């Protein structure tokens, strides 16, 4: 199976934005920047204020990946899907919500918080914000920054289930003692995959899923999504230098 990466976006402790705007990618074990609604989503997006931090980070990375591929503007809904991996999902929001369920005088479980106690809710936000009607869901896998979301997205493209697919991951730090669940660094990274890109200017390069279930970018075997970002960025820089 083959696809082409046409956009990459991320929110990590060092930066938040489109891959095309940066020279390097890093994902250190540090707190993520605050995602402000106006900076990321524009002043006209009313729903951003209601979201939890997990949703904001994930939605911002999706937004940056689409912008990087010049696909963030739309008028008609599009058959673009999203498959997102996570380790901790919305666990911090779960804890916040469950605080409202504690027996007390002010007992009032929060319906607003409860709506964000599913790890896939932010994919619905992304679908609304960018008119994405393709298949979307969240996966958990054992390897942090693993490649399952990418493989499933490529399969979806191959079967014609969507015209384009976003895939990546979003995981946030959680308070002790629940931090024992998390093995990878906090952050959100998304890729836009296409079969036949309309605009070759933003192309990073081809990604291939072989019969042995291995992922290659150009001819380099990829072990995790962070490495894929670095290699894809290097590949595009090399191509831009040549031209």
């Amino acid at each position, binding site marked *: 199976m083959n696809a082409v990466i046409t956009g990459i976006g991320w929110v990590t402790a060092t930066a938040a934005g489109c891959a095309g705007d940066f020279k390097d990618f890093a994902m250190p074990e540090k707190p993520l920047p605050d995602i402000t609604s106006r900076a990321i989503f524009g002043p006209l997006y009313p729903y951003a204020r209601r979201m939890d931090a997990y949703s904001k980070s994930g939605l911002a990375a999706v937004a940056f990946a689409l912008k990087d591929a010049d696909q963030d503007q739309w008028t008609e809904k599009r058959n673009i899907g999203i498959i997102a991996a996570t380790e901790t999902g919305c666990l911090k929001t779960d804890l916040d919500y469950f605080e409202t*369920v504690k027996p007390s005088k002010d007992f009032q479980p929060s319906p607003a918080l409860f709506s964000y*106690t599913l790890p896939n809710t932010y994919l619905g936000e992304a*679908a609304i914000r960018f008119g994405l*009607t393709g*298949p979307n869901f969240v996966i958990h896998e054992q390897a942090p920054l693993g490649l399952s979301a990418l493989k499933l997205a490529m*399969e979806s493209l191959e079967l014609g*289930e969507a015209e384009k697919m976003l895939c990546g991951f979003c995981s946030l730090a959680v308070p002790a003692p629940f931090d024992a669940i998390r093995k990878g660094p906090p952050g959100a990274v998304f890729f836009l995959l296409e079969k036949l890109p309309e605009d070759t200017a933003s192309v990073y390069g081809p990604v291939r899923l072989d019969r042995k279930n291995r992922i290659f970018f150009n001819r380099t075997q990829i072990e995790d999504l962070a490495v894929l970002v670095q290699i894809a960025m290097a590949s595009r820089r090399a191509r831009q230098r040549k031209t």
Partner: protein
Amino acid sequence: MSTLVSDLISSPPSKGTEAIVPVITDAVAITGLGDGLGVLWQKLMRGLSAVRPVDRFRTDRYTAGVAACIEDLTTPPDGSLIHPLLDRLFCQMGPISPDTFLITATTKAGIDVLEKIQTGMPADLQDVSLLSPAVAVMKAFNLTEGGINISAACASSTVAVARAAAMVASNRANAVLVCGVDVVTEFVFSGFSALKALSPAACRPFDRNRNGLSLGDGAAALVIMNPEAARRKKRPPLGKIIGWGVSNDAAHITAPDQNGTGLIRAVSRAMGMSGKLPDDISAVCAHGTGTLFNDRMEMTAFRQFFGPRRVPTYSIKGAVGHTLAATGAIEVAVGLQALKNRAAPPTIGLQEPMSEAVGWVNNEPVAFAGNCLLTTNSGFGGVNAALILEG
């Protein structure tokens, strides 16, 4: 047939020139109606319901006090209820080849351990990870090919079945075990209560006086195989998955799109892949939660999709409650029974159908001819999923 439906069916997704049609070789389930798919089917056909007062936690602070809990499910001292539930599911399952890929589906896994932590009881923190059911299943069957969990709200295990079918159709796996599991917890119960989505009494899907959903414990396991591999391993197919489709409403994060467009997209994608036409569908297993908006949206979508033909349509949630991530897998298992018996089970709780569902739903079993069944689920985040089973 609407323009949207005809447009979508005329440009279907392709399974390739030499399509592999995945088969289901094993199907087991546990619900509030008991252990085993046979028991579930018999009790459904008799019109029984497992919805009863909850004694697992206090409900006096909430808008409802009933759910379809499994009565003799006992919480382990330091863990989640999902473990005894999965153990009972494993007892029903035949041998699973170690090279089977695993896809679990859960919305909240062992979130009930938060209740233990809040009250100072010992608890295994790993149970709150949505990967915890997958870890338990891999350990129980010594699976070597790894696995993932899929979380797509109430459509989780329907999406899991679709991905399992896609893996088999793409030749990426010969066999995939899908396990859906969720339990009734105070965490989830309080949330649906806060959203005013719980029915005070057992839910009444597609009824004109429906007023919310009832939650339920549930788990189901399905083995989805390459048909040639199934033949080699002498695993006779219970049915085929001939089409699947997943879509997003892109409209609202908790309320379904009232014009049904998102569900129509999912159904149309599944139908396009199957090569069938709407007239080939003999029966529909609807999501049918019993909420005002879900049931109305579904009937809007089905009426647009099927046109004037009234297709036998049922919901099992009045019997076993809404089992969240497990619901799709349980409904596939029941769908296989419906195809085998050529009968749609009654919609339990239905007294007087909502006007849009008159002639579609029934509180008695309905015999049908034909061999294709559509099953659908929708959930928070705007997700819709549809499967077409052939039996």
